[in-house]
């Protein structure tokens, strides 16, 4: 179960990283083209409201991935530049909104709806640009382009719903078909526009995201939309949580599940649309999925997951936008997603609730405690004949109060179970550190504490064996192995029940119902 989800997560990550790399590569490729036709590049530079700190360095002597100076870093950290400040703030809010909304869609298992939606926006952007050009409006006005994006995005979603309801195709098929067809149409449309019209280059920023092309007005729009999303998420947190957990119960209680689903979809649409410019339509889905998936590793409370997810999204937005302010040529979408991915990887490994490390530690601890129980019982049973011969069946605690007189040889312990001598020695070392036993020449002896613990374990094991024989008709030769698996999970109340069932109160450790290997001395 876990390994499968990890596998899927890794697959998604690999895919996103691939897309991010593709983003870099395309961007670099475009720059080379730009170098070849410097004049055209200069025009588009003037036209794009470039807020980068590097904007004074024009394109003619450009060495694009130049390392920023200390001064530039410093002014970024202090957010000295007004434009940078606004852009970073806007994208941070966008990240927070996406993280919060994403935690709902992840739990509603609708995470990929946003992907179909965002890919379906591309043709809309192209159409809006063409229409505005025809009518002589400002073809790069963001609200207009986003309006076109919303229109085809919603059409795409509608097609998904129609396919799902009116055919026998499953939702993932419908999503895949719509996503690729709409995106393909958009790409074709964009290349047509580019051939018709040289200065349509800005439209690419919608595919991979480019904060550098954002103007103050654009940022204001993004920030306002993100704030609305955050506000709605907070206000309807309780209702959306109920919808995600148990939609049918929600409608039985009079919460309109369909309308709540529409609200949730509306939030996704808003985040995707306003995120187009900063993150790009291919990667905006990552901002909806990765922070929520990362947050899930830290908590079992939805409220906490919701907040952590918002914080990771915000951090991704902030760092990503900041980085693309100093590295003007890096696509900001890729930066944002890579920062989020770093958070995801950290969460996957170190997450306190479901992280790999925590689970590994728990498993190791469990294995160690099982090994210790096996070791103690083995030592107890091997020394048992000598103890019985001393007539101390009921007084298992050694007389001198410190140590048992019987030494159990390593040879005998190794023969008792199929464990390697390395594993046995480690287990003995750990038990010795907790002063349950100590090494005595070639063997070990139990301490007083060790004997008490070992007697308790042996008792559990044998009670279960006797129960199996008397009540479940097991053959005595088979019960040892059965009890071996069960003894580690027997809780005190079960033991009490066993004792009353078997009427064994008086004997501290019952005799084994089957022959036990003895130590050869």
């Amino acid at each position, binding site marked *: 179960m876990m390994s499968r989800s990890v596998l899927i997560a890794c697959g998604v990550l690999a895919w996103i990283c691939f897309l991010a790399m593709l983003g870099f590569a395309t961007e670099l490729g475009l720059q080379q083209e730009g170098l070849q036709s410097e004049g055209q590049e200069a025009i588009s530079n003037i036209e794009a409201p470039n807020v980068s700190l590097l904007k004074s360095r024009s394109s003619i002597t450009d060495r694009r991935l130049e390392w920023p100076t200390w001064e530039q870093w410093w002014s970024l950290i202090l957010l000295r530049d007004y434009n940078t400040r606004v852009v970073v703030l806007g994208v941070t809010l966008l990240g927070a909104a996406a993280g919060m909304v994403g935690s709902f869609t992840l*739990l509603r298992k609708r995470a990929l709806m946003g992907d179909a939606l965002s890919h379906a926006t591309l043709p809309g952007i192209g159409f809006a640009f063409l229409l505005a050009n025809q009518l002589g409006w400002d073809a790069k006005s963001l609200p207009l382009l986003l309006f076109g994006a919303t229109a085809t995005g919603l059409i795409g979603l509608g097609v998904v719903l129609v396919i799902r309801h009116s055919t026998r195709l499953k939702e993932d098929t419908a999503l895949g078909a719509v996503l690729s067809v709409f995106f393909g149409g958009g790409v074709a449309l964009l290349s047509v526009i580019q051939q018709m019209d040289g200065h349509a280059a800005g439209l690419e920023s919608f595919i991979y995201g480019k904060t550098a092309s954002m103007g103050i007005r654009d940022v204001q729009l993004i920030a306002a939309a993100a704030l609305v999303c955050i506000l709605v998420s907070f206000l309807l947190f*309780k209702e959306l949580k109920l919808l995600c957990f148990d939609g049918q119960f929600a409608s*039985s209680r009079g919460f309109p599940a369909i309308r709540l689903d529409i609200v949730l979809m509306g939030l996704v649409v808003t985040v995707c649309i306003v995120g187009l410019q900063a993150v790009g339509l291919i990667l905006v889905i990552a901002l909806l999925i990765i922070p929520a998936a990362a947050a899930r590793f830290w908590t079992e409370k939805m409220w906490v997951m919701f907040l952590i997810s918002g914080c990771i999204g915000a951090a991704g937005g902030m760092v990503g936008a900041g980085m693309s302010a100093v590295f003007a040529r890096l696509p900001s979408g890729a930066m944002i997603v890579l920062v989020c991915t770093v958070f995801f990887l950290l969460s996957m490994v170190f997450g306190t609730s479901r992280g790999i490390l925590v689970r590994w530690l728990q498993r190791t601890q469990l294995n160690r405690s099982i090994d210790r129980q096996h070791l103690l019982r083995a030592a107890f049973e091997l020394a048992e004949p000598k103890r019985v011969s001393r007539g101390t069946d009921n007084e298992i605690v050694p007389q001198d109060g410190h140590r048992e007189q019987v030494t159990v040889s390593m040879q005998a312990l190794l023969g008792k179970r199929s464990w390697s001598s390395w594993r046995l020695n480690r287990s003995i070392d750990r038990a010795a550190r907790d002063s349950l036993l100590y090494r005595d020449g070639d063997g070990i002896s139990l301490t007083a504490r060790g004997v008490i613990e070992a007697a308790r374990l042996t008792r559990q094991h044998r009670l279960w064996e006797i129960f199996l024989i008397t009540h479940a008709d097991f053959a005595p030769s088979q019960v040892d192995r059965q009890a071996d698996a069960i003894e580690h999970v027997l809780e005190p109340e079960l033991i009490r029940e066993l004792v009353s069932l078997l009427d064994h109160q008086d004997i501290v450790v019952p005799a084994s119902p089957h022959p036990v290997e003895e130590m050869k001395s």
Partner: protein
Amino acid sequence: MNNTLSESSATATKAIPLSIDDLTVAYHRKPVIWDVSLDLPAGSLVGVVGPNGAGKSTLLKAVMDLIPRASGRIKVFGESYADNRGRVGYVPQRESVDWDFPVDALDVVTMGLYREIGWCFPVRKKHRQAAMEALRRVGMADLANRQISQLSGGQQQRTFLARALVQDADLYLMDEPFAAVDASTERAIVDVLRDMRARGKTAVVIHHDLQTVAEYFDYVVLLNMRVVAHGSVKDVFTPENLQKTYGGRLTLLDEVTEAMRHQRRKL
């Protein structure tokens, strides 16, 4: 004026908890339940029994308007379900939700109060206390803060029961609460049901174990797409009626299979 008001409220509480008249429900034009008419007595435990695919869950969902009905009228305490939602508690099938959801048992139980709390308002302390009380009634007070995937199947079922209890409804609709639960959970649910009856509440319970029907319920509805029989357990829960509920369908299937085999032989 005062008099008529108190009179009308008195008749409302006395009214039949659930009255179904001529209900037909169809999925994709294929009828699932046909012409069901029922009047359930107040203050009784009603078992709904029938084979798989007999439309038992569909009946409950149709009562709560969760699925559209082709025809028929349903009255809850004399009014429509939408008007009397607050007096109905629903316990869905355990398998209907993802138990890996990031909430604990107490959270799930508080969900039963969301309607009372109202849109946009947060859960407050008194709601959490009420939820705690409901958990105590099903013997789960110690497990209130445990994440729901860490609960055993029986404990999950009890959590769902507590979510319905916390509403303090008058009519409870339960979809197979006894399915695959341990003995102690079964006892706990039966205790809760008897306690409900003692307080004059009605519970409609979909049930699979024919052995325990007579022990747990006063009233039984035998359902197989249509109502085969309904009435007190003593009168209705007879071998003939059970044969009609479970057997008829099977013999028909046998006949059809036989006919097909015959046809194939001829070809």
